[in-house]
């Protein structure tokens, strides 16, 4: 039984087809032509309580649309959604109590109000008891440092401050399910780290987390499961480790050769690995299920002297990039 369930979820947008300019607009008034654009096309998702799921895909793949369907913002064209036993677009308010949402590109803070007022308004909307509210504010101040932001007008916040305040706003009522759409977009490294650390803590508290992002660092830091979608369809769904195993078998070892042994000697010796490089800098790519790094280094040491070396772990970034580029058929 999933906490968040979607079955053959489909959302089709109707876009008017207009010619250019005024003529096109006038013509459209009389000949109404529309094109159906499926943004989400028959997606099945089931997320258990306490899972942290990364939801990734190229721009326009339907990530945000899925999130909005799960939140109850959009009404699905067909298929069904159920979140904690509630159909979001039917029982919007009941669903709203269970979830916390952050759209990284947009703030939910009231633009012309101080942060404190925004949080106070949310407190009223979620009906939070005074003691609980204060306790949450203290907790959110500990992890996000929002205390210093409380008297500041939302429009005067820097991007990083705004994101911290927005996270606090989304999580104020301690929702069981949290959707985050690009939670680290545009942030500098220091703030990103802070946000990720916070998300890990959130996960540790047992919150169910769904995260869309372009920043694969977010995924590796926070999630254990990944769903990849493209053109509105799901193309991968499984543990992050499994995805790495299936699609990121290759590790790379970079070596500095100190005794001038030519590259082709090493290549000949390591027939099952791919050796490339220039001069004394050599890169060896190998299947991490066929060999361990120790085996490779031992083999190289038989024919050459090695000064420095380091190892690249398989990055999901490579995998996802390949998927985006259509190089990888999953």
């Amino acid at each position: 039984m999933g906490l968040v369930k979607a079955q053959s979820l489909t959302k089709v947008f109707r876009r008017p087809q207009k010619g250019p300019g005024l003529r096109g607009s006038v013509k459209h008034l009389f000949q109404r032509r529309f094109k159906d654009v499926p943004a989400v096309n028959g997606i099945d998702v089931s997320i258990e309580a306490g899972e942290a799921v990364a939801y990734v895909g190229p721009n326009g793949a339907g990530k945000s649309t899925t999130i909005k369907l799960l939140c109850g913002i959009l009404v699905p064209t067909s298929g069904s959604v159920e979140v904690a036993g509630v159909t979001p677009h039917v029982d919007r308010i009941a669903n709203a109590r269970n979830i916390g949402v952050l759209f990284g590109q947009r703030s939910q803070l009231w633009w012309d109000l101080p942060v404190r007022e925004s949080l106070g308004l949310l407190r009223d909307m979620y009906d939070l008891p005074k003691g609980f509210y204060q306790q949450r504010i203290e907790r959110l101040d500990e992890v996000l440092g929002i205390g210093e932001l409380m008297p500041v007008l939302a429009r005067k916040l820097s991007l990083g401050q705004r994101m911290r305040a927005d996270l606090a706003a989304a999580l104020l009522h301690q929702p069981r399910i949290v959707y985050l759409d690009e939670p680290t977009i545009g942030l500098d490294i220091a703030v990103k780290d802070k946000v990720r650390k916070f998300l890990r803590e959130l996960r540790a508290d047992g919150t169910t987390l769904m995260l869309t992002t372009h920043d694969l660092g977010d995924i590796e830091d926070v999630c254990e499961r990944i769903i990849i979608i493209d053109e509105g369809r799901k193309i991968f769904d499984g543990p992050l480790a499994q995805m790495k195993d299936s699609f990121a078998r290759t590790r790379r070892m970079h070596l500095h050769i100190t005794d001038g042994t030519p590259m082709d000697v090493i290549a000949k010796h390591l027939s099952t690995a791919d050796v490339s490089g220039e001069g004394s800098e050599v890169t060896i790519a190998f299947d991490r299920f066929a060999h361990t790094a120790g085996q490779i280094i031992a083999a190289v040491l038989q024919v050459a002297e090695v000064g420095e070396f380091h190892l690249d772990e398989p990055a999901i970034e490579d995998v996802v990039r390949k998927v985006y580029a259509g190089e990888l058929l999953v």
Partner: protein
Amino acid sequence: MFRTMRIYRRSLGAHFRSLLEYEADFWVLIVAGAMFNALNLLFLSAVFAHVPALNGWSYAEAVLLMGVWSVIGGLSPLFFEGVWRLSWMVNQGTLDYPLVRPAPVTVQVFSSGIGLHGVGDIVTGGAMLGWALFHVDVDWTPLTVVIGLVLLASAATIHLSIIAITNAATFWISGPHPFLAIAVHTFEDMIKYPLTIYGAGIRAVYTFVVPFAFVTFFPVSWLLDRSAGWVGLLGPLVAAYCVWLARTVFRRGLRRYDSSGH
């Protein structure tokens, strides 16, 4: 219900406090709002210096009508200003957040702003209304007072519903500005004068299509016991119809919302 009211009050209050930050602006807006009403009154006074009646309406009666219009017109910026931001929210996709919060979307939208010029309207309009009530010829009974208040509330409801409906048109007519609502609102200003000065076409439209006549003309006619004044008693029915229509339009509209900012 109480919770909804509290959210609404709290949201308006927060926006009000933020406006108080700029004290000078606060007064400029209130005074500017009051000025137009003062000028409308000046117009009536200047004209009535030369004529005894406007289409059978005495000076006090005409002032009463205008006062009702100013008070009701001032309610929308004070309590409903946020609805004018709806088309911007829909166009930019910022209606997403109100949709994921456990409170009615309409309440969140309506209370998302406050227009202080409404204070100027209500103060000047209230003064006109108060003065005129002492100078018109009405047989006051407790029943007159009660019905009068009910009709005033109905008039305000009709006015606000029409603003809500025309702004909700943005779910169908895309674009960041509520042009339809602005246009309709400008035409509503014509009801500051007795409806009888206009041609039959305008009278029919303002009665049956967009029932602005029930905001000022019919309820005031009822109070002054003019011919066809009984129509004013239909105010609550018209108000109920307008509220129902506004609700329906909003519900249908929200289902169409496609969060297009992204």
